[in-house]
């Protein structure tokens, strides 16, 4: 099976709607097919990655820890749009620190998150075979 470039585009905040969780489920299912996967977080999607989420009081499952497991599924290209963070008063420090281990470099730990401009992300998007939007 030829490897295709898949990009999952996340544009919704978590918990208020089910899009963020559904996207994560599809990413995990798709990870079993050994494709070239990347995730983009733009607009309110950047809120999916905030650290310190605690859903005890709203009676919903806190699925934010799952993002830190993506590296184990070879999902290690996570694009976060710079403009979206800035418009919301956020910085990378407000987000989880996501890492993956590089098998080719003696399992060296590397950052998964790539902070990119809107224009650069548009270029990456244009290189994809398939974009799935949530």
């Amino acid at each position, binding site marked *: 099976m030829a490897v295709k470039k898949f990009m999952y585009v996340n544009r919704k*905040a978590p*918990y208020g709607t089910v899009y963020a969780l559904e996207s994560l489920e599809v990413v995990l299912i798709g990870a079993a097919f050994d494709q070239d996967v990347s995730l983009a977080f733009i607009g309110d999607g950047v*809120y999916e990655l905030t650290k*310190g*989420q*605690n859903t005890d*009081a709203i009676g919903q499952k806190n699925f934010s820890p799952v993002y830190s497991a993506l590296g184990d599924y070879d999902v290690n290209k996570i694009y976060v749009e710079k403009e979206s963070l800035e*418009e*919301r008063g956020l910085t990378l420090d*407000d987000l989880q620190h996501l890492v993956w281990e590089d098998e080719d470099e003696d399992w060296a730990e590397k950052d998964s998150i790539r902070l990119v401009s809107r224009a650069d992300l548009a270029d990456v998007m244009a290189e994809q075979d398939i974009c799935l939007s949530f």
Partner: protein
Amino acid sequence: MGLLHTVNKSPFESNTFDTCLGYAKDGSTVLLIEDGVYAATTGNSAADKIKNASGVTFAVLGPDLQARGLEGKLADGIKVVDYEGFVNLAAECDSVQAWL
């Protein structure tokens, strides 16, 4: 007390928050719930609009803020309430307008 307005949409995703502010008169309360809580955080355009809406009381539902990991980003002058506080606000105000 005046009207209680609730907003449950992100200010960056829809115009619900802006519409609500246009209808929030002096003496009314705006309670931010669900994805509406993003309007209660610092360093964005919604924070400025809250600062400029004098005469209106702003509150945010704590559990929804905690769920989204944003307790540390709460803007000044916004009261945090729990579910009991939500009920109290609804009981104290003349009526509730839920902006969806």
